[in-house]
């Protein structure tokens, strides 16, 4: 399917019996144990595993950038097709001349985080052509010409302009393109892509994958793709190596791996990915499921009261109307615009959250979904609009609440954060963390708080031994569960989950999603579930709102949205989700170059051309709203 590999007899990269261990406090950690695999010239080998499985450590070993504390066994043979020379990278002196000649020149690497892997002080061109300046003796004009050519190749529409720009002027997708250009400038024989799309939105991810695949075959380059996402693997890889806890569990061609998975670990990973074909009520099979035991939580009189009172009241728990929030960015004098430009982060947004449902909010980063969650949490004040919360104690105007009323509201709406690392104070024990909300609101005495904390821990599948441990001793999924327990401590009615699983592995993701689902049904909770991943929202939500550029462009019950998406933005979001299924590859051709939120690519009835024909939510029936021109006939939309 890609250009035929150069008829080289051997492997480009051959890793044999690699073992890497780290000496740390509490005994050595064996990050990689006896791993062997190869990368063929001109082919893509994917290394798949959860975080902590040792896959990034292997990539560091290949580049010779392991930390000093690492102890390495085995061999990493790199067969340079240019010189025909075979070198064992592990034998080269650290940071010596030989390894430096390989790095950046024969082996390129792109990193996960495009936001931090570019220097903010140098122009894009300046950073990219550094590799050529080091590894070649071309003169300045030639270096620049080669750099511009590469910038064009990775898809910058105007390479000459991009050459002189700074990284902060570029979006995440363009930065990742710049990183790719940097890695490929010297035409390396091997590209190591360490989670190249994990930090990106799905639509951008699809573009970057397309670009990588395209360049890889065009430059006849081999690629070692490191990822935890089987959907990405199915779309890009030729050979797959599955690694768990430093050991290789399964390896084979992409056909073997996806059509005939054998190992329970691989099967477990595949079963844990939510997909659009799931029947209503079908459960994901998490690799490590957490039994939910809410028993003691439900017995608390508070929970009973909430459950009893909640039923007869109005159907809508929270209703937001006409929310507007704009931020002012200071116009920079350098580019000729010296005045302040307001950017509308949230533009005329209104929605209802019904009692006991899960409303999904989907959109790319920067679309305003987090601003909405912050408005609801009263962390950000909107410019205008209203939010009414129909709690168990009657309706409250959320935006007007102050003082004690605000503190009372805080107990009813709680939040689960995206980042399980930074959302728990590293200096408090789990017991202190979970009981903090109880202390703040003076609930009970020390004894009853401890009981409550223990009950919460049981509900999220941890036992009492966790009480006196600190957050650093837990895995990402366990920490996220602790965050959920903290959010549940006060018995909230509405739980806002802001990308609760996007920092987690798929296997852990399924566990957290199942836990949230179980808690919802057991405790009668209402969720606002925010995510950029439509498949995840599809699994969780009853209704889904799709946001783009500060507006809700489509809002529909889950099944309706999946079966009959109307808005072009929704459609492109749906098309960009990669499946771990060889028969459903991403359709790269339909992905717009300028991104899914580029209004010019939309059909005219969805565009706002500023001619007075304003966009307004149009009801297609069955609770299916779509943002379209007022004058457009409904039948034109469907």
């Amino acid at each position, binding site marked *: *399917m890609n250009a035929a590999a150069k008829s080289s*007899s*051997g*492997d480009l990269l*051959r*890793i*044999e019996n690699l073992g890497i261990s780290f000496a740390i*406090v*509490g*005994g050595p950690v064996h990050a990689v144990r006896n791993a*062997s*695999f*190869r990368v*063929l010239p001109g082919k893509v080998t994917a290394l798949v595993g*959860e975080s*902590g*499985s040792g896959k990034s450590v292997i990539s560091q070993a290949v580049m010779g950038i392991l930390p000093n504390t690492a102890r390495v066994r085995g061999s990493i043979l790199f067969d340079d097709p240019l010189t025909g020379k075979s070198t064992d990278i592990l034998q080269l002196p650290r940071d010596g001349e030989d390894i430096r000649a390989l790095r950046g020149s024969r082996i390129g690497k792109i990193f996960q985080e495009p936001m931090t892997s570019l220097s903010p002080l140098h122009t894009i061109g300046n950073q990219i052509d550094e590799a050529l300046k080091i590894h070649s003796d071309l003169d300045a004009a030639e270096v620049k010409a080669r750099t511009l050519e590469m910038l064009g190749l990775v898809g910058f529409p105007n390479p000459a302009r991009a050459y002189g720009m700074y990284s902060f002027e570029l979006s995440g997708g363009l930065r990742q393109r710049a990183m790719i250009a940097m890695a490929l400038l010297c035409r390396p024989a091997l590209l190591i892509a360490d989670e190249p799309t994990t930090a990106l939105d799905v639509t951008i991810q699809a573009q970057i994958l397309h670009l990588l695949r395209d360049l890889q075959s065009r430059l006849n380059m081999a690629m070692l793709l490191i990822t935890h996402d089987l959907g990405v693997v199915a779309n890009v890889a030729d050979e797959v*190596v599955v690694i*768990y*806890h430093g*050991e*290789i*569990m*399964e*390896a*084979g*061609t992409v*056909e*073997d791996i996806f*059509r*005939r998975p*054998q*190992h*329970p*670990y691989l099967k477990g990973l595949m079963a844990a990915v939510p997909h659009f074909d799931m029947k209503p009520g079908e459960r994901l099979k998490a690799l*490590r499921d957490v039994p939910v035991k809410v028993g003691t939580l439900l017995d608390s009189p508070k929970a009973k009261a909430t459950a009893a009172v909640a039923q007869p009241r109005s159907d809508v728990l929270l209703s937001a109307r006409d929310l507007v929030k704009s931020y002012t960015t200071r116009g920079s004098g350098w580019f000729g615009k010296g005045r302040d430009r307001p950017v509308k982060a949230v533009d005329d947004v209104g929605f209802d959250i019904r009692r006991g449902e899960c409303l999904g909010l989907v959109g790319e980063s920067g679309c305003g979904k987090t601003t909405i969650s912050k408005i609801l949490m009263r962390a950000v004040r909107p410019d205008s609009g209203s939010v009414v919360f129909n709690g168990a104690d009657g309706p409250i105007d959320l935006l007007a609440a102050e003082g004690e009323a605000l503190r009372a509201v*805080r107990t009813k709406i*709680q*939040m689960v954060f*995206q980042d399980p690392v*930074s*959302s*728990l*104070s*590293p*200096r408090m024990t789990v017991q202190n963390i979970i009981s*903090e*909300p109880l202390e*703040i*609101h003076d609930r009970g005495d020390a004894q009853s708080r401890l009981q409550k904390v223990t009950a919460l821990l049981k509900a999220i599948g941890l036992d009492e031994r966790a009480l006196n*441990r*600190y957050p*650093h*001793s837990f*895995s990402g999924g*366990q920490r996220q569960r602790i*965050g959920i327990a903290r959010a549940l401590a006060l018995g909230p009615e509405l739980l806002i989950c802001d990308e609760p699983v996007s920092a987690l592995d798929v296997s852990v993701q399924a566990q957290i999603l199942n836990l949230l689902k179980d808690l919802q049904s057991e405790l009668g909770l209402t969720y606002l579930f925010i995510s950029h991943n439509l498949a995840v929202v599809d699994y969780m939500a009853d209704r889904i709102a799709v946001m783009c550029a500060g507006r809700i462009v489509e809002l529909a019950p889950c099944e309706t949205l999946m079966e009959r998406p109307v808005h072009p933005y929704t459609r492109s979001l749906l098309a960009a989700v990669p499946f771990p299924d*060889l*028969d459903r*590859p991403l359709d790269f051709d339909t992905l717009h170059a300028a991104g899914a939120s580029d209004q010019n690519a939309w059909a005219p009835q969805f565009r706002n051309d500023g001619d007075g024909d304003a966009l307004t939510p149009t009801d297609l029936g069955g609770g299916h709203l779509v943002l379209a021109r007022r004058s457009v006939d409904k039948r034109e939309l469907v």
Partner: protein
Amino acid sequence: MTTSPPMTTEATTSPLPAPGAPLGHFVSTAPFDPLSVEAMTEEQAKVYQASQLRLMWWKFKRHRLALWSAIFLAALYSMIVICEFVAPYNLHTRNVDFIHAPPQRVHLFDNGSFVGPFVYGRTMTLDMDTLKRVYADDRTQVQRLRFFCSGDPYKFWGVVPASFHFVCPAEGGQFFALGTDRLGRDVLSRIIYGARISLTIGLIGVAFSFVLGVVIGGLAGYHGGVFDLVVQRVIEVLQSLPSIPLWMALAAIMPVTWSPIVIYFGITIILGLLDWTGLARAVRSKLLSLREEDYVLAAQLMGARPARIIGRHLVPGFMSHLIASATIAIPGMILGETALSFLGLGLRPPITSWGILLTEARSVNVIAFYPWLLYPMIPVILVILAFNFMGDGLRDAADPYR
């Protein structure tokens, strides 16, 4: 991607085929436990249940140099509590027969026979050409050193009269391990007494600048806005002033009529007034970054009041960093005091600090004739290095989760 008809590939027992050969289908037969990544060993459990202080201590311990520096400093600071006992002579004792006497060597063997630590007696002659006192060992006088003995009388902490010493010269003999100065006072004893002032002035000065730095930097970081802007500019101005002339100007303000002890506090305040800027910046930047952490937002969203957020979340977060940066600031204080005293603007006799001792060695011919008067430099260098190493180790340990 082209769909190829399903074909079964050979199952292999190794994930690595022969070079260039097609890859078979490898499935590991090793036992598989999906929970093995979450399982932890005994040692890991110990680490995981450790508190922050304990983790910091473990990390600090691994920095050998910092650990030894800390032990050295601990020994020095415990010494200054009992320096009257440690020093062989009283601070003010003048031995008029031994003016500018060079250091005496401690011997163990006399004529091949073991006698324990002792020094030889001294005879002094006056060189009539240079008018310099010349001391020579008198090999017939073997003066054994006494330990835990009664010697030069002193008042412990200036209050309790006593005469108990760790080491004293033999009855009627002398013991000047580091020589004597122009009044015949023992240099070693004076260095030991001087440590009391020089080491505490750093601590008091840093405590003073710590308070200023935390309060000013904390307000700037927490409130931001205009206050932050003003504070930042003031810090920049203060840091751009040349420090020695400014110290001199401030020291000159202090009236000569003040008693030496008041001057001592005056000097610490001057040093503290000029040194808080670095700490204030550290506090401000740490606060700004901590404010962005999700757990602080989480506490706000739980309805926590600002006092609780500062006390429970922000202060514990940056206190360890502050202590580390304060440790690194102490040497600057000690050097500042030394420099001021050396210039004659700091402390004044009879208060004795290392800087005062060094004023004795201000002229070139003193150094040429009596080089032992420069010995107070050695403790200054050692203490400063030790503080820097220890601060280094503390800074590394301050964030044990990284």
